């Protein structure tokens, strides 16, 4: 279970998160929606441990572990996965080697046996196939020369191979055509189960037609201003943020 209490964070002396309270029980998928600049990506980065953010108040725990006090790689070994809004290119780093290094580093940290090259390739190829991705994607350098859609699919492939327990998807749907969107959704839905939870950050209702969330939260000015069921996303689609976000919320921030 992910538990965030009163989380506040600043970057370059600017307050971005302003007291986030959020609980994602194990087995559930929650969506976070909100306008540009509301703090969605910052929340994702703070949870994953990116440098540059200063947490000024609050806590975030996963299954009782204090996430904010440990390194990004330790969070990953606990089962946290961030699908990046802008996946990073790694020239000179082979995609398959990258993924195998990551998987084995996590397995080592958890005291599990590492996979050899043959075992790994079998797993990675099977996952690539299940996601309708060409094998060729594994042979290329990480995200180098990938189209926007390929980069997002590569994030989903990593997620499928690493099998996280808590996935945070940061606008994984942006810039995707409908076919790619379905592949991304299939990747998440394949992991769905009693031990898997996810936080799906998105601007649009569209992804939530394919990944139906248990709860939807609206983020505005660094704070969750409204929570509800999947119907909240539909209301948002129909009326826009102005209709949903109470006027007091923006004034308070």
């Amino acid at each position, binding site marked *: 279970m992910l538990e965030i209490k009163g989380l506040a964070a600043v970057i370059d002396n600017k307050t971005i998160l302003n007291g986030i309270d959020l609980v994602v029980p194990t087995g559930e998928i929650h969506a976070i929606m909100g306008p540009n600049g509301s703090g969605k990506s910052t929340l994702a980065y703070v949870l994953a*441990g990116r440098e540059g953010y200063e947490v000024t108040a609050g806590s975030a725990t996963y299954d009782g572990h204090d996430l904010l006090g440990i390194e990004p*790689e330790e969070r990953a070994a606990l089962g946290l996965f961030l699908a990046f809004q802008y996946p990073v290119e790694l020239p*000179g780093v082979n995609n398959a080697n990258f993924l195998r290094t*990551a998987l084995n580093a996590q397995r080592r940290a958890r005291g599990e046996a590492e996979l050899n090259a043959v075992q790994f390739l079998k797993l990675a190829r099977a996952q690539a196939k299940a996601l309708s991705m060409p094998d060729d994607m594994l042979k290329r350098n990480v995200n180098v020369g990938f189209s926007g859609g390929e980069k997002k699919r590569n994030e989903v492939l990593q997620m499928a191979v690493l099998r996280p327990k808590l996935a945070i998807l940061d606008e994984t749907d942006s810039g995707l055509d409908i076919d790619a969107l379905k592949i991304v959704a299939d990747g998440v839905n394949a992991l769905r189960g009693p031990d898997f939870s996810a936080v799906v950050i998105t601007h649009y209702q569209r992804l939530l037609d394919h990944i139906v969330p248990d709860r939807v939260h609206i983020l505005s000015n660094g704070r969750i201003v409204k929570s509800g069921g999947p119907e909240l996303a539909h209301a948002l689609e129909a009326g826009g943020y102005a209709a949903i976000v109470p006027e007091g919320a923006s004034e308070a921030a």
Partner: protein
Amino acid sequence: MSTTAPPSGPVAALNAAAAAFIARYNDSKARLPGDTHARAEAAALLAEHGLPGPREEAWRYTSLRPFAETPFAPSVPAEPPASLLARIPAIEGTRLVFVDGRFHSELSGVPRGIRVTTGEPALGRIARPATEKLVALNTMLAEDGAAIHVPAGIDGGTIILVSIATGHSIGFHPRHAVVLAAGAKLTVLDLALGDGEYLHNPVISFEIAEGATASHLRIQDEGEGAFHLSTAYAEVAADATYDSFALTLGARLARMEVHARLAGERAAAHLNAAQLLGNTRSGDGQHADFTTVVAHDAPNTASRQTVKNVLTGRSRGVFQGKIEVARIAQKTDGYQMNQALLLSAEAEMNSKPQLEIYADDVKCSHGATVGALDGDQLFYLRSRGVPEAEARAILVRAFLSEALDPIGHDQARGAMEAAIAGWWDRHTI
């Protein structure tokens, strides 16, 4: 001596060092093998001009001062320790092993199909002691070397040319010459190993006839107290290729100078290099200089240089790359890229590209970048579970791969990777 240098300071120290080398030559010239005339000429050049000093443009970033203050005695025959022998990579080919600059026949093999002569310096035809002072020093004091000749049309396979230094405070100046006749092929894996403080001042030349291909792959992994000052020459005829890669890991002060002349149409030279530098155990920063001069002297010639530097601690890297395009050398294609990764605040990179172009229809480009590891890339790797140290290592290796990838010789590439892994064990990045 025509110098009017003050009695102290770097110039005086270098003059004193040159005088000490000349005195050693005078003591030993009766027993030195080979061309006595060339030696005497080199001694006269050195007496007149001294060692390279800080006032010379080509030596602006690299000072020989620390070297000038260390006395170097002539070497005596020695047996190398097993620890150094174990570092010679086990790759297919014929070993030619030089210990403290002397050919060691028991450790060496006899190649097939090519001619190798040892026992005296192989001066070759293209080295220029009159222009390069360290080549004059080498010519004056050289005691041994390998003359390698590959007949026309023959693939000579791989020669593993090994220098092992065992002695403290010794200086040695091996002199090798490689000649490839038309259409011949040869790979030379040129390896320098050692322990302790010493001066290794080798000169090697490659004469590459029409359609021949020489691959010169170098690993400089000298002892951390060592001075490595090497000069390589290549003269490349029509349709021939000099393909080189130099990996610098060792020595407290190193300079590799490469002079390549593209003398015939469609001749090509690749002068790729990687320098990985850090602090020695005593806490001093290593200094390494890779200096190239490529002369395009015929039409349709091509040169490629990718030079990568990974600098930690208080180390200092230097790259000087000069491309000269003669008036006749139309359609020259020259490319030069120098990149440095600075992994500490105290590390420093000096980069000096120079283009001298006298032809009007050429394509020459050069570039240089200096920077730290990319924070976004580091975070991306760590967010996937890769620990920080491993993530840094992956990114540094990725940075180096562009220079290493063109090495077509798989076993030599493996030897490079192993040497880099050894460097890794000794340094924190």
